[in-house]
């Protein structure tokens, strides 16, 4: 039985230092690294060879398999290597290295896709390489595929951007409101009955004002101001707070008649429909206590972190930790050569003081994790279950505690006074349960 109706959330420090600064475009880096797994789904397969000359926007890897997504050259130049690569999160992938010739010569074959039917539209979106830029990196065509089956009543345009520091979606709304309008107009064609709700946290008044201005005459678009709390932008949370709906375990969001699409994703879709530009560049927030001049920078996908930091005035002090993504959910990287990917919205570098690791101690059962969990889980129960010796018992307990409903928002780890890595344990628990039941199924055959 739940004691509260409202979803729990956290007040985290915003640190949106770059919110008021216009994003800048910079010269391309000398080299880009394009991983084949910049999306959720099967890896892309390279279609170029070492030594090939490629132009901006040219296909370098095609999609292959379930929810795979093509990759395009993000600079013009020569393919110097196609090699195995270990990513920041430890997963192994293949990367294509392209040495830039500095010319940024655009592929002359790129032009606005001619689409009439839904099938043609979805095929075009598939070829664009666009993925959800809010963080999940789920291929956009996979999300829009729901249009074939479900009647979409509400399109929730996610401009919450609840992670501290990051302002790239914010800047998109302020600087490229025209693209947001165009993006919505593209979608309208295929879901004429849908209502659009642009949802923005209250700490972005200029973005709210700009969106209200450009959609003033459009009755199908509502601009909704949301409370500035973390994790307001998480799928389950924003869905509940805006529509009052809940996705059940194993249920698809679209079956509720709702699609959630990140505002920058929408702008990239608009750009693609306008002139055929696939997803090749993006706005990245460079910030943190070790960055000299925090700012938003538009760079080609695959640009190494080091280059972005240089463009933001370099490091002001010896960094202790460098993150790809926000401080709540981002990955710490071990090397500044790590490239930004399609869904990377920030590079954050922190000084030694801000990078101190906290020593975990035993759970004191204080219940802070339970009271902050937006989806009413008991994170410490997962932590306890993971210490069970018996694997069957462990898997069953985790399932019983609805482990799979965990949205991995890190609120539990953030508040834990014993400094236990609760979210990380949940991720490990999910991997364990998947493996355990897969092995059982295998053994049963």
């Amino acid at each position, binding site marked *: *039985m*739940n*004691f509260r109706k409202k979803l729990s959330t956290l007040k985290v*420090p915003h640190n949106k230092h770059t919110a008021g600064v216009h994003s800048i475009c910079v010269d391309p880096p000398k080299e880009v690294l394009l991983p084949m797994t910049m999306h959720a789904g099967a890896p892309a397969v390279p279609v170029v060879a070492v030594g090939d000359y490629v132009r901006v926007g040219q296909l370098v890897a095609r999609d292959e398999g379930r929810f795979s997504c093509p990759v395009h050259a993000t600079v013009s130049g020569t393919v110097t290597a196609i090699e195995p690569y270990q990513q*920041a999160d430890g997963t192994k992938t293949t990367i294509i290295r392209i040495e830039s010739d500095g010319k940024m010569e655009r592929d002359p074959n790129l032009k606005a896709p001619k689409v009439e039917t839904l099938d043609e539209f979805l095929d075009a979106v598939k070829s664009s390489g666009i993925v959800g830029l809010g963080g999940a990196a789920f291929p956009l065509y996979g999300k829009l595929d729901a249009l074939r089956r479900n009647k979409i009543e509400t399109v929730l345009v996610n401009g919450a951007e609840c992670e*501290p520091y990051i302002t790239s979606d914010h800047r998109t709304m302020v600087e490229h409101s025209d693209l947001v309008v165009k993006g919505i107009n593209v979608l309208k064609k295929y879901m004429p009955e849908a209502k659009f709700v642009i949802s923005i946290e209250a700490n972005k008044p200029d973005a709210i004002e700009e969106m209200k201005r450009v959609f003033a005459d459009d009755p199908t678009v509502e601009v909704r101001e949301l409370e500035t709390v973390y994790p307001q932008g998480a799928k*389950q949370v924003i869905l*509940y707070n805006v529509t009052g709906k*809940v*996705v*059940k*375990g194993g*249920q698809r969001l679209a079956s509720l008649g709702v699609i959630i699409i990140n505002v920058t994703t929408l702008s990239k879709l608009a750009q693609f429909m306008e002139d055929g530009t696939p997803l090749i560049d993006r706005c990245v927030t460079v910030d943190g206590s070790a960055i000299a001049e925090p700012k938003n920078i538009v760079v080609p996908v695959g640009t190494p972190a080091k280059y972005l930091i240089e463009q933001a005035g370099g490091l002001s002090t*010896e*960094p202790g*930790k460098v*993150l790809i993504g926000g*401080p*709540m*959910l*981002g*990955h*710490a*990287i*071990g*090397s*500044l050569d790590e490239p930004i990917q399609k869904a990377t919205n920030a590079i*954050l570098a*922190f000084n030694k003081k801000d*990078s101190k*690791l*906290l020593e975990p*101690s*035993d759970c*004191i*059962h*204080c*219940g*802070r994790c*339970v*009271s902050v969990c*937006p*989806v*009413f*889980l*008991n994170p*410490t129960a997962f932590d306890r279950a993971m210490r069970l010796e018996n694997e069957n018992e462990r898997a069953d307990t985790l399932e*019983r505690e*609805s482990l799979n*409903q965990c949205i991995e928002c*890190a609120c539990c*780890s*953030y*508040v*834990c*006074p*014993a*400094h236990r890595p609760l*979210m*990380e344990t949940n991720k490990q628990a999910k991997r364990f349960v998947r493996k355990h039941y897969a092995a059982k199924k295998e053994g049963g055959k």
Partner: protein
Amino acid sequence: MEKLTVSAAPHIHSGASTNRIMLDVIIALLPVSIASVVIFGMKALVIIAACVITAVVSEFLFDKIVGKKCTIGDLSAVVTGLLLALNLSTAVPVWQCVVGTLFAIVCVKCIFGGLGHNFANPAITGRVFMLVAFSEVAGGAMPTIVELEASATPLEQLANGGVVPTLDKMLLGIHGGAIGETCIVALVLGFVYMVVRKVIRWYVPVAFIGTVFVCYLAATGGDVLFAFYEILAGGLFIGAIFMATDYVTTPITDLGKIVFAVCCGLITFIIRYFCAYPEGVSFSILIMNILSPYIEKWTANTPLGGSKL
């Protein structure tokens, strides 16, 4: 450039820590500790010192002997020692304080794995152990700043129909009893501090004390003054504020905490009203500590998008 730190997300933290929480509890216990020395004299200070030192030293030695990482830095041993001391009267000899604290720390807490693994509140269990082993724990001792004729605690006086102290003396704690249970004003001060610091939920002590109050109102047919005396007397305030809000041994859910507190109140009333024994708070909390995992299970939240199992 030196090596970069690679660690799991999140990379920022609220700043909360176990020892900060324990420190807050100690700060919340300071007013009543000072009050106990003022009311009961230096003997109170001796008892507090004996219990706290024994608690810290015994946990330190236990960790050393079993080869565990030293845990006295989390300050929970200080809290246990202090709480136990405040639940004893000045009539208790120092050696008994030492034995009781040893039992609380070693047998109730450390043997089960230390802080977070104990099934019952160490201070409460230590007190109950001393009640059973040495019989005289709470009663018998008199404040040194007043001369009272009777040597009974207000609860004993209430039970036996004796003369009870005036209401202002009840609130200030100038009457017989355990050194830390009498001064209601100081206890409430600690309660407010812990609520402000978000260490405890306000509704746990309120539900506990409220339940006892309502039960007495019902039992006495609406005798407000009597019910008021009943909640002010004995260990109800210190138990409800500092023991029924213990994290480790109470349910983790909001609803569970309330169920726990109300049940504590009911059991306290039943023991006090129907049994020969005048004090029921320790036993009620101890009984509910044991039931806590079940309450937690029955009051589990329903996950958003999931189903209750």
